[in-house]
């Protein structure tokens, strides 16, 4: 490419379009400029806001420490882009290299980056979802609305689903002194992401904080009064709870519908791409000019058996965006793979939870430092005799070491002695993940060994 000068031309005066104006979109734009792209840059986003940060929405914002509209992402540098905010992309014509927008306009591109992320999966019964008091939490508008309602002091809040977002919301409610019931289909909170052993610790934390935690239970219906206000929730064990607010935390859906007839390999599980962030088309062939990054992407990871990982992690969005941006304006030999070791954090019930690697891939777990009973520990996850993940509760400073163990495919269980190793942590036990054949809303990581094609993938939506 650079041989005939077209790459130089692209870098100098090409047009790059980014669809999705959030974390991944912004960081990609900054990287493009950092790496010397001087052409035209257009950033399309369907939300009216400037790019903002989502993690505080379920933490500081719900606690009232930061207003919902104050989480704007800091700019690392000037990006000099044309911002088309409040306008959704509605279609992609790959042959004509054109993106269609909701306002009827179209923008042409030399290179396209898709960072449309995910949205909260709504409550599946539409009429019930529309009741006043039923919320999801994905956007800053969601957070503003929920914060407003929590400030009014509802008698009881129901959180449906105890994954990370649900657990953080429950934590914020308790910190505000609100009564809260958490309904979780699995056997414990966080069980899909971290397994049953660690899930039990999370359950204890919730109960000690005064959460009415009900596991192994589904919400079967939401009931409103004559004015359309939420009043009651019905549970699968036949009981019901009186609630004024319900937050639906049943995981996320990828924002890929706008690509339905584009010929891109985009479906409900995201957009598959190669390790260099280039999207696949429906035929399984990699594209040259369409790149993806962030929550919407699924990419193969050499460290984890080349499985396609789709990660809803802040750090992944940043690093994948940087890699995608770099590759978009580099010749093939200068491209880099996105070989980020998955990691994320969560803050709940006064606890700093951190994870590296891919816990749900594990079959066994061992506590190598600290103790589950004290809720301060490092747990290492094993898969077929090697270290595949590690999770810390309030012990984050050791995590880097375990990340290296994962990256070096170190043997599991680890045989060495460490500081703070306790007798009860000496033996590996089953990690306790739910049967993967059962649909679950819990995991933030989904794994699939299959080649992408939206037509062939069957997806079982959650029936509550």
């Amino acid at each position: 490419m650079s041989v005939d000068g077209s790459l130089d031309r692209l870098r100098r005066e090409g047009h790059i379009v980014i669809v999705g104006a959030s974390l991944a979109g912004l960081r990609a734009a900054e990287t493009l400029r950092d790496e010397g792209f001087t052409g035209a840059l257009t950033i399309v986003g369907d939300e009216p806001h400037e790019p903002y940060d989502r993690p505080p929405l379920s933490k500081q914002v719900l606690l009232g420490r930061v207003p919902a509209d104050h989480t704007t992402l800091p700019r690392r540098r000037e990006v000099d882009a044309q911002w088309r905010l409040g306008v959704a992309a509605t279609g992609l014509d790959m042959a004509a290299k054109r993106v269609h927008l909701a306002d009827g306009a179209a923008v042409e591109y030399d290179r396209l980056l898709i960072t449309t992320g995910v949205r909260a999966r709504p409550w599946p019964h539409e009429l019930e979802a529309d009741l006043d008091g039923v919320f999801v939490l994905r956007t800053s508008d969601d957070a503003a609305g929920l914060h407003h309602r929590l400030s009014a002091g509802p008698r009881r809040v129901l959180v449906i689903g105890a994954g990370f977002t649900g657990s953080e919301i429950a934590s914020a409610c308790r910190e505000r002194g609100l009564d809260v019931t958490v309904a979780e289909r699995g056997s414990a909170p966080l069980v899909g992401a971290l397994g049953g052993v660690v899930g039990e610790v999370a359950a204890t934390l919730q109960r000690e904080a005064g959460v009415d935690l009900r596991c192994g239970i589904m919400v079967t219906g939401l009931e409103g009064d004559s004015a359309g206000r939420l009043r009651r929730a019905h549970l699968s064990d036949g009981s019901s709870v009186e609630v004024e607010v319900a937050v639906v935390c049943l995981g996320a859906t990828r924002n890929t519908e706008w690509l339905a007839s584009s010929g891109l390999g985009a479906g409900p599980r995201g957009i598959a791409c190669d390790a260099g962030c280039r999207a696949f088309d429906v035929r399984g062939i990699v594209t040259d000019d369409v790149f993806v990054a962030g929550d919407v992407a699924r990419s193969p990871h050499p460290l984890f058996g080349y499985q396609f990982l789709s990660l809803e992690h802040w750090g992944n969005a940043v690093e994948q965006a940087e890699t995608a941006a770099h590759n978009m304006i580099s010749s093939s030999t200068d491209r880099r793979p996105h070989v980020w070791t998955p990691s994320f954090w969560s803050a709940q019930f006064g606890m700093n939870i951190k994870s590296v690697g891919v816990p749900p891939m594990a079959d066994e777990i061992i506590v190598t430092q600290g103790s589950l009973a004290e809720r301060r520990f490092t747990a290492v996850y094993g898969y077929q005799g090697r270290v595949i993940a590690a999770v810390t509760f309030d012990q984050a400073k050791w995590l880097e070491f375990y990340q290296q163990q994962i990256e070096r495919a170190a043997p599991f269980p680890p045989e060495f002695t460490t500081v703070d190793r306790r007798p009860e942590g000496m033996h590996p036990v089953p990690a306790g993940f739910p049967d993967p054949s059962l649909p679950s809303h819990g995991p933030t990581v989904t794994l699939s060994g299959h080649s992408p094609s939206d037509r062939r993938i069957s997806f079982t939506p959650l029936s509550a």
Partner: protein
Amino acid sequence: MTSVALLRQITDYANRADPYPLYAELRKTPVVRDEDGPYLVSTYWEIHHLLHDPRVSSDIRNLNPEAAAMTPAQGEDPNLPPTFLKLDPPEHDRLRRLTMRPFGPPHTPRRVYEMRGELGEIVSGLIDGFQGKQQIDLVDDFSYPFPVSVICRLLGIPREDEPRFHAWADTLAASIDPVRGSAEDQEAQLQTVRQARADLAAYLAGLIEERSRSPRDDMLSAMATGHGPDGQMSPVEMVSTAALLLIAGHETTVNLITNGMLTLLRNPDVLQRLRDDPDLAVPLVEELLRFEPPVQLLPQKTTLADIDIAGTTIPKGASLWLVLASGNRDPQRFLDPDRFIPDRPDNQHLGFSSGVHNCFGAPLARLEAQFALTELVRRLDNPRLVQDPPPYRQNAVLRGPRHLGITFDGLKP
């Protein structure tokens, strides 16, 4: 060159003024040891990894017997428990958390911030004292008294007792020096150290006792009366923790400020930049911690298991010296490492160590150095070094000038 030769050179006073060429030599072999000496680790990433490695212990009771015999006794008081500096988790974590409660976030997030006014006052007062002089010894006239006053106020030590503290701190800091003289010298020195430790402990115990009866807004009172999920420190734990804060919060900052002023006087363009733009103090102090770290090396680590690193296996129970100051100048990690670049980007230095033992007092030390250097360059008119290099202290671990003569033409208000 053998490692023992290197080791001796590190502790050799002749190299105190400029140990950096020696460190460059050391880095050629990232992990090096002689038959019965400690393992020296000198490169950035290896040090970084070992600081985050749970198989590395800070508790010298885990040394194997031969290594333990090589490690000089430091006049520990057998009646006091080890401080969290020399403990591993979970004991380390518990004591550090208990100490953090009255000092920093999440329970006391504003303690350091709220000392700004006081820091400013102490600094101004000390500089006002230069009035009428043309020459000062920065160490005795400024760098020493400043952090002693700060730590005393933080802990809640009456001002009239500050001079006694100064003397105790001096004696105890010298004991961290790994270099030993003759057997008699050693015995005499140990005697002095033990005495200082005992006197300090008795003094602190009395004060803590008093504060538990009538608490005030200071750290000793908070430690004596506070209750949290970890319970409370025992009285002896309070004494040893308070003693640790005094020594560590003092001997290090002295060198940070003195090394800082020395570096600025050697780089007049940077000095002028700081004078024009006081905000430069923030990144400048970070660069200082990289370039001339007050704690040059950590000599008190040991291995709980065999550790493979940089092609060497460090056996279980070995003594480990992590040469932070060398890691800070590792060209594999820092661009142009021997240049002082006050606004250096990506400056993750090892000056405060890293991992669970990273410097407890870092937020305070940063603030003290920022205040001190900004005010010194603002108020001293045309400051100049009297002697370069200045005379250094004997200590190879806590390295810094013993005196720093500075002449100047006058004082700005």
